[in-house]
């Protein structure tokens, strides 16, 4: 029962931060940063399941974010779907593609897997950039309004655009965190963590390793896809960069900085890498240098990532 109470504590703290933080926001801009953290945090939570639980790397998950994002841009235009349904379509498409490519790709290990997933991400962003007549190419594509804010207005809940997206993406992050925490201490979660540590021992006790790796891959693709959809709907505009190599690397970096095996670490990693560049702009020319330096220092002094290292430190003190 110890584990389940720490699960509720994590959710409670996260919910409290999301609720209380806006009281310190001097402007709408901060709501936007918050939403970006939540959107990134959602994709990173998926990667915690893939990398942290199952021990499988992916350098191409922005590809799934791209699929989710462009589903929201294109499905309303070409299929006449409501943006919310387009988001679901994107999720289903990402899951299907993850399932298809995951079967051959997940036989690979370590850096072979890294390169194969990298290839997938590049493929998606190339298609999005090159099919200009449909996708708008490198210049990007407009995304229709979700319409939920207007709906809330009619029932008397009057939020600014920035506030609405802050709340909406925050709810998604909470839900994603809840699911990942549930998974961690469940039979399936234990099977995933077991195959991470020893595939042969996991197989020996009856874990269908191939199937579980594939489940983690599909699940993390769904998280990434939803994150991409939310970003597109929030910005009302999307470019192929959402699916790009740099975004994939950014997501993995957030995962590792926060602590790959830790679900709250996902949010911490996303927060750090989303906020730091904003904070560091005051340093102008040195911005990227300092960012790189901070990342290196975190990894040198907290090799298991922010949240696991800090919680060990706190436990050591008390």
């Amino acid at each position: 029962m110890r584990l389940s109470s720490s699960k509720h504590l994590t959710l409670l703290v996260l919910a409290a931060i999301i609720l209380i933080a806006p009281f310190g926001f001097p402007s709408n801009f901060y709501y936007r940063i918050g939403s970006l953290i939540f959107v990134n945090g959602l994709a990173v939570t998926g990667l915690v399941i893939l990398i942290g639980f199952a021990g499988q790397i992916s350098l191409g998950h922005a590809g799934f974010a791209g699929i989710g994002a462009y589903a929201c841009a294109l499905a309303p235009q070409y299929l006449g779907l409501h943006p919310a349904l387009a988001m679901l379509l994107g999720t289903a498409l990402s899951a299907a593609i993850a399932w298809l490519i995951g079967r051959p790709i997940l036989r690979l290990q370590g850096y072979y897997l890294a390169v194969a997933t990298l290839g997938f991400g590049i493929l998606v962003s190339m298609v999005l950039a090159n099919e200009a007549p449909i996708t708008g190419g490198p210049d990007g594509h407009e995304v229709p309004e979700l319409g939920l804010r207007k709906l809330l207005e009619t029932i008397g809940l009057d939020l600014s655009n920035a506030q609405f997206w802050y709340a909406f993406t925050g709810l998604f992050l909470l839900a994603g965190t809840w699911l990942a925490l549930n998974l961690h201490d469940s039979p399936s979660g234990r099977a995933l963590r077991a195959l991470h540590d020893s595939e042969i021992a996991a197989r020996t006790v009856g874990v269908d390793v191939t199937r579980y790796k594939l489940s983690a891959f599909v699940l993390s693709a769904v998280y990434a896809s939803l994150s991409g959809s939310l970003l597109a709907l929030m910005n009302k505009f999307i470019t192929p960069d959402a699916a790009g190599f740099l975004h994939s690397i950014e997501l993995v970096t957030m995962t590792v900085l926060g602590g790959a095996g830790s679900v709250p670490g996902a949010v911490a990693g996303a927060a750090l890498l989303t906020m730091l560049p904003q904070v560091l702009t005051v340093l102008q020319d040195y911005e990227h240098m300092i960012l790189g330096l901070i990342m290196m220092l975190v990894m040198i002094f907290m090799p298991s990532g922010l949240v696991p290292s800090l919680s060990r430190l706190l436990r050591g003190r008390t």
Partner: protein
Amino acid sequence: MPLLRVEGLGIDFGGLRAVDNVGFQVEPGEIVSVIGPNGAGKTTLFNMISGAYQPARGAVSLDGEIVTGMVPHLLARRGLSRTFQNLQIFQKMTVLENVMVGCHLQERASLLADLFSTPASRKRSAETRAAALKLLERVGLDCAADKEASSLSYGALKRLEIARALALEPRILLLDEPAAGCNAVETEEIDHLVADVAKSGVAILLVEHDMKLVMRISNHIVVLDRGEKIAEGRPGEVSRDPKVIEAYLGVQPKEAGGHALG
């Protein structure tokens, strides 16, 4: 009908015939030991039986069904479980969780139920937890249940692997040097545990270098040397076999004399 039957089993690594033409059988409740000098091919034999290696020749059957080269997770479903000579522990999980993973097949996990933490999923976890705790008690590790597995001593990890293998509720259990690195007291405990498990009807195939232990608890012994079976029989017969004495001491039995395997 024997529970496990091995016939003419063999595998090569490059030019090396690591195991060749090995055959024997194990009945339910029986303890069969495989002994032989270092590099004789005992672990390789285990790896072929448990599906980790594909045998080049021969056949393995389990309860009459041919299972040669079947993948390990399907063998697990058929009740075959094993431990490893070079420990294969889930290092980053707790001691209790290690054993809980051993209950994987009974849990019949469903990903969706687990994601939404349905009452059924929570009930399964609770049941597994209780079962795993009992097994930890059985190997004397219940007090370490919530520790991270990597913090245990070598001897304790050996016992943890046995508990995990038992969690499967196997019909046949392959133990690769369970007493290696254990002190006299721990070896005694493993001795009792293995005999106890066999008494409950589980067939046991044991690789062990501690000859006192082997001679005491085995019903039947198979002796390997350089990949081949050179003798088999009851403990008393095997320990007097000249070929066995020669394999162990590398000299003619006349020079060595008597009971090399005491």
